[in-house]
């Protein structure tokens, strides 16, 4: 209860701000519509309003404020519009839609749930590939000076390549060499998620202090024993911290990989929404994606608690 208080207060503040911001953001179009409908607005013509200050317009036409929260294609949809769209495109679509769960027996492609699922599966696959590759690379880096010196700088450079910008092209190229379905998106996901894992795991695998590794030496432990008995357990807190970042990155990767809209997914949904000027649709997909990220991060947090409990819950 004590913890929920501030969040609720902040949420309220955000909603209030949001509603307030929607007024000047949308006023111009509202006035234009009102003018078309024959109402008297000041200034009277769109040309005059074009360079007018938005706040000034609001003050000059206070009667039109409620219209800014009820537009069809708002610049900034009001919270209840987004919530309504979310409700429509998840629950209502599945219940009532021609292709919804109730009527067709499978999730509707006009609803968001199917797209969230598509994105989620690409994210999961990409995350597994990326995290796995990241861990292996980190192990290599920790064990080989040459690997460290040659690969590490390029791992950094690799992240300065605007992969997000290349994603569509890569997906196309992969598609043309026969990689289809989830895999091309997962490759982008993996590319974005491997880096945080490498950085975190290199730190984590090096976390044991000199004494802990020296002890291993006095027992004449093999490299493999040191890895499994010391480095890996010691790296767990670092691993989970980076996995949380990585899973969020993987989600972004999957969404970006959906830019070529074949196959659907939340990314395709957002873009298609933007092609057809469906603002509410973009916002709904956007919020669902953020919620998905929150769930994924929370899931990793759960795994973390479980693992740390099994490891004595010290950290």
């Amino acid at each position, binding site marked *: 209860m004590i913890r929920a208080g501030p969040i609720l207060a902040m949420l309220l503040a955000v909603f209030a701000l949001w509603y307030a911001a929607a007024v000047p953001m949308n006023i111009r179009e509202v006035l234009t519509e009102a003018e078309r409908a024959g109402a008297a607005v000041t200034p009277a013509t769109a040309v005059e309003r074009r360079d007018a200050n938005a706040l000034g317009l609001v003050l000059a036409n206070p009667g039109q404020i409620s219209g800014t929260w009820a537009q069809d294609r708002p610049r900034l949809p009001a919270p209840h519009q987004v919530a309504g769209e979310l409700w429509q495109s998840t629950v209502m679509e599945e219940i009532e839609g021609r292709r919804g769960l109730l009527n067709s027996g499978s999730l509707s492609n006009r609803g968001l749930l199917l797209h969230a699922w598509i994105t989620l599966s690409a994210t999961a696959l990409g995350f597994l590939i990326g995290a796995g590759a990241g861990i292996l690379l980190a192990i290599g880096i920790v064990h080989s000076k040459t690997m460290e010196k040659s690969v590490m700088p390029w791992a950094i450079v690799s992240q*300065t390549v605007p992969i997000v910008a290349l994603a569509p092209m890569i997906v196309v190229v992969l598609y043309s060499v026969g990689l289809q379905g989830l895999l091309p998106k997962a490759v982008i996901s993996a590319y974005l998620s491997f880096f945080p894992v490498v950085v975190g795991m290199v730190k984590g695998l090096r976390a044991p202090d000199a004494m802990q590794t020296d002890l291993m030496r006095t027992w004449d432990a093999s490299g493999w024993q040191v890895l499994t008995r010391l480095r890996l357990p010691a790296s767990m807190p670092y691993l989970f911290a980076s996995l949380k970042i990585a899973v969020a990155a993987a989600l972004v990767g999957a969404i970006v990989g959906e830019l070529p809209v074949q196959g659907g997914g939340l990314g395709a949904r957002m873009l298609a929404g933007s092609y057809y000027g469906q603002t509410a649709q973009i916002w709904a997909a956007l919020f669902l994606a953020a919620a998905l990220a929150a769930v994924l991060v929370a899931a990793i947090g759960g795994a973390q608690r479980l693992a740390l409990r099994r490891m004595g819950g010290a950290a």
Partner: protein
Amino acid sequence: MSAAILALALWLGLWALNVWLATGPLANRIWARMAVPLLFGLTILVLWEIAVRALQVPLVILPPPSQIGARFGASLPVLWADFVQTIGRGALSGYLIGCGAAFLTAIAVDRFVFLKRGLLPLASFMAALPIVGTAPILVMWFGFDWQSKAAVVVVMVFFPMLVNTVAGLSETTAMQRDLMKSWGAGYWQGLLKLRLPAAMPFVFNGLKICTTLALIGAIVAEFFGSPTLGLGFRITTSVGQLALDMVWAAILVAALAGTGFYGLVALIERGVTFWHPSQRG
């Protein structure tokens, strides 16, 4: 077949040279330390060139590095203008505004538990908003020019910077804080003389992460509308024109700029956090 053997031989040879450079008697020389990653990069480029030529990959799929280099050299003025537009205007101003705002917010969040409890979860939610969705909206709000790119960058860098700075500000040990208290230090004194210096390693961690994010944000935002220049513009239009060499030349600019940007921040970090164990080597 012979190309495969040639590639393999080259790979093994260069790798062996690298092993020797990295672990051999010269390993501590500065030039050897620089040479190792460069040699690794060179190896990849050579293998790329061989692969593209041997497999006769169509130019419109993947051009060889030599052609990319030639295109880069021939298009310097265009690429320079793109660089100025995307990185000089969009990324840089967004980076400064976003990181600055996050820094100040972090100080407020650190001061008021209420904000920490209320704002941090919201900020993390905001961080999860994918750029693909936010960019079109921000382009719609802020117009086609660099301002909308800066806005996208602000949204992208805000959260990582906030989280890092908040973590950094609470990085002091109880003893360090107690000392301040025992001297009767006020809030601002504690902030300026203790918490901010102690936070610097984290602040720079955030600043480094944000360099690449800023770059990516500015470029991707250009997909959703831009004037007729900029790296993102160049990449998309060139893909459309099948000028893949130009696409890669633009990517090269982005990677060079990103690496330079990152290196610059890392350099400043060295100067500011010289005292931190990770910098003392």
